[in-house]
């Protein structure tokens, strides 16, 4: 992987505080009484068995679901700003259109999400350098995941919500995700990451949250 040096860009300082958070999916109470706070530069690492509510917690934070109980408070953002526009979402649904080329995909999401680094730089960073002319439908699952990660780079945002970011990635991809996360946290960003795999993040400020089996 080419050695990229991220610019010493600073993201707006944002804090997230959750108090007594509970979520229900259908009949089942997935979790309740969840408290955590995240400050700039901190990573919330969410672990737990399948069905424990990791994705649900991310969707709560993303604002796609309303909590059954408890509150989620964003500090450091304007009153009338949409918190959604501060977050990047990465999930198994990669929103890749098979007939668009990689550079078209990144240019589109950059136009939608906000300006930032060059698409070529981002593709280099995720290990897809030189493939910008390729149609995204020709990529493997791991490469599609890398393309989705490149979107996080082209539009810098303070909050990353990552659902299994290393799924479908090889060992070198795992390291790349860890490096991206370290850079993001270093710039004062927050991240919430649901994962099974241990991420090689030394020296990062990690808040660990383990969700139990649903009751």
């Amino acid at each position, binding site marked *: 992987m080419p050695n990229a040096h991220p610019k010493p860009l600073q993201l707006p300082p944002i804090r997230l505080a959750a108090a007594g958070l509970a979520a229900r999916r259908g009949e089942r109470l997935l979790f309740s009484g969840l408290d955590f706070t995240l400050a700039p530069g901190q990573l919330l690492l969410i672990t737990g068995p399948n069905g424990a509510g990791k994705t649900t917690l991310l969707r709560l934070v*993303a604002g*796609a*679901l*309303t909590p059954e109980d408890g509150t989620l408070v964003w500090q450091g953002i304007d009153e009338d700003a*949409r918190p*959604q*526009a501060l*977050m*990047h*979402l990465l*999930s198994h*649904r*990669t*929103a*890749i*259109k098979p*007939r*668009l080329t990689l550079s*078209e995909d990144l*240019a*589109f*999401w950059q*136009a*939608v*999400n*906000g300006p930032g680094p060059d698409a070529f730089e981002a593709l280099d960073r995720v290990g897809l350098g030189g493939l910008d002319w390729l149609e995204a439908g020709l990529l493997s699952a791991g490469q599609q995941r890398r393309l989705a990660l490149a979107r996080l780079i082209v539009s810098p945002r303070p909050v990353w919500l990552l659902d299994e970011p290393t799924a479908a990635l090889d060992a070198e991809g795992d390291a790349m995700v860890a490096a991206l996360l370290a850079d993001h946290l270093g710039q004062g960003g927050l991240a919430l990451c649901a994962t099974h795999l241990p991420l090689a993040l030394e020296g990062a400020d990690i808040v660990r949250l383990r969700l139990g089996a649903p009751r």
Partner: protein
Amino acid sequence: MTGFFALIAREIRLSTRRGGEALTLVMFFVMVTALFPFAVGPDRELLARLAPGIVWTSALLAMLLGLDRIFRDDHADGSLALLNHGQLPLEAVVGAKVIAHWLLTALPLIVATPVLAVLLGMDVEGWGRSALSLLCGTPALTGLGVLGAATTAGLRRGGLVAPILILPLAVPVLIFGVAAAEGGILAPTLFLLAISLLTCALSPFLGALALRAGDD
């Protein structure tokens, strides 16, 4: 605003790359119209008199055919969730979809109307009135269609639900559209324009509401 135009450009690019999607709709439009002379018989005068109604019915059916692609793919592959995290409010996303859908389905139909004029034995004036009435009325059909598509985006087998939902709502458009195409008085055209304006102004807000409600 760059996101708004980027979204319209992406819709057009996806549609053209997917291989003649607009062309399929136009073919459908022309072939439904071509059925009428076979069904009614080769009476040119009768056909010319029925022509505005035939053109409008075919256009309405063709517009319904394209509804499914507006939100279903974007909902299924996660694009819609990501667009909700864009800088644009969801209302603007739906607005861009309305414009893109009009450009991709209604405009090709209007361009194809000379073919229909020949098939139905319309004169140049009759063709002009039909094309003008479609130009005034299709934005209303597009707005209603996007609304129907937004309401059914999350349904797994919702392919036919959106057309059935919006067909009754499209009846006033059809009535004023045919009246405008028959010509003579100005009032139906003005009504058509009023319905189009109202529908296009409201559909982004109602569509966004429907998408949010369907997301949970």
